[in-house]
């Protein structure tokens, strides 16, 4: 029994050392996908048909195929394309972490853009009109009226998508990245003690996801003005800073 515990302890220590790799992939692709999704959302409401078509095709392509296939396409497929193999891009494309991040950025941006698109459609028209009626245009309207509503509407689904992304990072292990799942497989190859190792890895993923979802829920609560108490006190002499 004691031997058992020490084994689980040492395995956990090894797995924990791989957590930064998982988090790095998650952070890089999370940020890039969100930025890209913002662009795609803008394209989806563009006036000319071309950007709209691009967004629709992008969504169709990346939501309709498995992420693992996209990762393989980028990692193995692009390696056979001569101008990548012999160009300056090769330094990036030979790196499995880069390839995972690239595939996840493309794939998840399609999902996130759909979330943003739905939220944009759900922003009450009247709020936007009230902004226009008092002379707001373009960026100011977007920043002061549309974005605050859009973010609040999109946040629950966005949080969900981030959790999905955390799980997807494990696919990096299929192209030799030593993330949590990768290290777990490596340890098993040496020790043949599958059950303990995979359970420890699963626990780590659960921990990461629990942390993320706690943070995102806290953010949601913070942004939810509906929960704020209504002070009925008279106006204090110094007012709180207005943001």
């Amino acid at each position, binding site marked *: 029994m004691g031997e058992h515990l020490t084994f689980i302890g040492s395995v956990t220590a090894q797995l924990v050392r791989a957590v930064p790799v998982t988090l790095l992939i998650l952070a890089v692709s999370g940020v890039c996908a969100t930025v890209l999704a913002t662009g795609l959302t803008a394209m989806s409401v563009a006036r000319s048909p071309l950007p709209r078509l691009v967004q629709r095709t992008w969504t169709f392509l990346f939501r309709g*195929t*498995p992420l693992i296939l996209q990762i*393989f396409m980028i990692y193995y497929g692009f390696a056979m394309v001569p101008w990548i193999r012999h160009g300056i891009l090769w330094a990036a494309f030979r790196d499995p972490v880069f390839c995972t991040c690239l595939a996840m950025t493309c794939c998840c941006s399609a999902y996130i853009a759909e979330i943003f698109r739905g939220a944009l459609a759900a922003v009450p028209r009247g709020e936007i009109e009230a902004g226009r009626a008092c002379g707001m245009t373009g960026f100011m309207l977007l920043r002061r009226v549309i974005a605050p509503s859009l973010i609040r509407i999109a946040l629950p689904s966005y949080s969900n998508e981030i959790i999905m992304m955390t799980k997807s990072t494990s696919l990096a292990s299929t192209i030799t990245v030593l993330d949590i799942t990768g290290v*777990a497989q490596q340890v098993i190859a040496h020790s043949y003690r*599958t059950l303990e190792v*995979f359970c420890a890895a*699963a626990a780590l993923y659960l921990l990461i996801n629990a942390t993320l979802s706690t943070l995102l829920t806290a953010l949601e609560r913070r942004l939810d003005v509906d929960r704020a108490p209504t002070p009925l006190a008279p106006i204090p002499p110094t007012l709180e800073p207005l943001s």
Partner: protein
Amino acid sequence: MMDDLAILGFGPDGWAPLLLKGCLLTLAVSAASMAIGTVLGILLAWARLKGPRWLRRAALVYGVILRGVPELLVILLLYFGLPSLILSLSETFGWEAPGLPPPFLIGSVSVGLVSAAYQAEIFRGGVGAIPRGQFEAARAMGFSDLMCFHRIVLPQVARVVLPALGNVWQFNLKDSALIAVTGLSELMRTSLVAAGSTRHPFLFFGVAMALYLVLTTLSSTAFHYGGRYSNRWDRG
């Protein structure tokens, strides 16, 4: 270019038959996991809604775990972990040691277990979306529980639930590609083998992508019409 056509064709060096077989296997594995997910999902939803306290807790924990752990890990755990568990059990009890489990079974069960966690949430939400008055009206008119479920709950739940189930199906279809790690020669695995042996990964992954697109598009169209049918009484 001619080589490309030859290795993609139905000829002796062509991969077309294997790729198509891969497609069918992908569909079969996805359908099996969807079915497992639906049955288990309904049970889990029932457990969450009507079960005794401990069962409610257990169903909740199941959902949290299966929706929080990567699908790949679940598949690996079942494929490699289960045999080692059985092995150690059979050592303890002196049974004959079984070999590796069949990949199709393990694949569809593991994707199905994950699918069940998501489907349970959908069914729970679907039942919650039916106004209480509907149950009361049925009970007042003397419907039995089973009849109430069959005549009142099911048609209404189907309307709410079908689009969401369509989504789960799409995820199942794509998650089935992960079963490739068990060596089951579904579409993903076949394209991987073809890419390796012909050294044309770009071509074969591209073809596999196109085939997945066909599968996802066809099935989303099917769900669309299914949704329209189940929704026929809610249109003006």
